[in-house]
């Protein structure tokens, strides 16, 4: 299935070589957010939040065709 993925700020580097032009990515059907995170090699030990179609979702959420995923690392603001 094809979904859109956008990685922000400190996570931008994980898109390299994995996320295609137009922020798309091809995944197996029924991939969860956890599966996506592992595919992108995002470490498990940093604070991450996922929005799918601009709604908050947890790692067990199963992705669907044409979903739009935004992945943020939240740290602080200063």
């Amino acid at each position: 299935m094809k979904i859109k993925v956008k990685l922000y700020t400190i996570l931008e580097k994980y898109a390299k070589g994995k996320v295609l032009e137009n922020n798309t990515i091809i995944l197996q059907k029924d991939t969860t957010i956890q599966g996506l995170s592992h595919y992108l090699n995002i470490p498990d030990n940093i604070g991450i939040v996922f929005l799918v179609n601009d709604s908050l979702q947890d790692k067990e959420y199963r992705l669907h065709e044409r979903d739009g995923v935004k992945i943020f690392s939240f740290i602080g603001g200063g």
Partner: protein
Amino acid sequence: MDSLYGYFGKQLRVSLDSKEILKENIDASILRKYLGGVGYAARVLYDEIPKGINPLLPENKLMFITSPLTTNRIPGGGSIMLCFKSPLTNTWGESRCGGDFGPNLKSAGYDALIIEGKSDHPVFLVIDDDHVFIRSAKHLIGKKITEKIKIIRDELKDPKISVSCIGPAGEKLVKIANVMFEGRAAGRGGVGAVMGSKNLIGVAVKGSHQTPIAQPEKLTETIKTCLKILRENDFATNLKKHGTTGDMAANDAAGDWPTKNWHSNSWGKAEQLYYRFFNKHLVKNHGCYTGCPIACGRISEVREGRFKTPVHEGSEYESLSAFTAFVFNENIEAAIQATYLCNEFGIDTISAGAIIAFTMECYENGILKKEEVGGIDLSWGNPDALPELVQMISLREGIGDMLAEGVKIASEKLGRGSGKYAIHGKGLEAPAHDPRSGKVLGITYGTANRGMCHIHPLEGMAYDSGKMDWGLMKYGVPDPNTIDRWDEKGKGKIVKILQDALILPDILNTCKFFIYCGIYIDHLAELLSAVTGWNIDGQELLKIGERVINLQRLFNMREGFRRDDDLLPERMKKKPAFGFYKNEGRCAIKDFEGMLDEYYKARGWDVKTGIPTKEKLLELELEE
């Protein structure tokens, strides 16, 4: 006496009423116990500021303090701490600013500068090594920051001398007035009003001395190690590219973006706002002090339109959040301009945004009418209201005169049920982080010694939601990846250690972001040991951190603060009214008192009153 390294062992004491300038020796044993920065200042001001004084009268004192690490060479070393009794909160007051001022004060040969009394006319102080003098500042009154700095530099015929000054707001004793150090601010707590109350309009400093170093080769090696860590650190790379402002979208998604005067902890607008800023208005990044290897500062510009600004430094996370999310404003250009105006008039952007949000909510609920607010439409999100109110607060015009007192006093003066819209802790307006994203922040908000502060000493949510351990697991902090951000039990004990550690950059005058980028307290201990020749490790640093937190707490206790003042506003504890987390019951804070009980026990403070026990004070060598 043994040689003192890392210090000159001297401080300047300037009495503005008599114009007497003293160069005093500092007791080395005090430096060993308190090191510098907010630590040394806590000792001095606890001993010298009488209980119960009005912070805007001459009895208050204002300190500018350095530390052994205050030098551009040391990663994060370019900063100055200002300490005082706060006119906004009547608590312990401290405010930090990055830049070359601190290193220049140090290289002038002074570890600290103490300002006392009040001049009979406006003055500015010049420190040029041993040559210290006072000049009239009558010609500076009413001028904004950029113009003041230029005039001072032209008068001294030195375009590079470090200058700090207050703006018109400090002159008018606005209680959220800041002290500007060129483009950056010692923002919080009303320090600009303290300076204004003394008729001290500015301080200019330069120096030529080198701080004596005990182990120069060890220092060089340790600095190299730190720089390597920074080069390889993703957070440092991110800060350079996106600044703190880049966290807006992440914090919004994380429920860490207080919105519409705390009705919610998220909005869903931060991404578009941030990227409009990044793509259209960011000019370049900027290091606040010469040689900063991170350089997270933002140089911004709004080139055209009604919110036009010149190229200027500003637009940090807190400032833009205060003028967008706090006030429900979707016009980023208005937010950028409001920040710029705050810097020019000399007021704290966080408090200004919070005060405007309070005013908008009063207006929405009919507590304030249009004719009472100068005819301004204070509907939520009206961008045109921002520059108007920033000016009115800064110059105490119309309703601005009441708002200039801060939300706590403004709501007390206004009455009409406005108290529930005043979101503050001990009088300090709440910043742009939300404990509904991670409850460690709830405890740190409630207990921070300068009032509701996110960064002095600790951005608590960075631990339980950001999963940062700051190298503290070896000192007893649990792995944050084993902690649920919304748990309440167990957080009090963790906060005690985190605060003891994260106050250390404020004691050592180093930029706190360097700890975020992997320069942990063990590295600070190595740097400090190399500079001073003292054999200090992380454990001792934590003890000093604990000592200083307790001494600052004693300052507040002496002023009458108790457990009842360690609170969170009710709205901050509730489930958000809208946004990503409106259906997430776990983010509400259910048992703040239970968290506080646990924290006090971990601290060794009386659970009923919040006062440090005699046993704890003896342990910390803080006998009364």
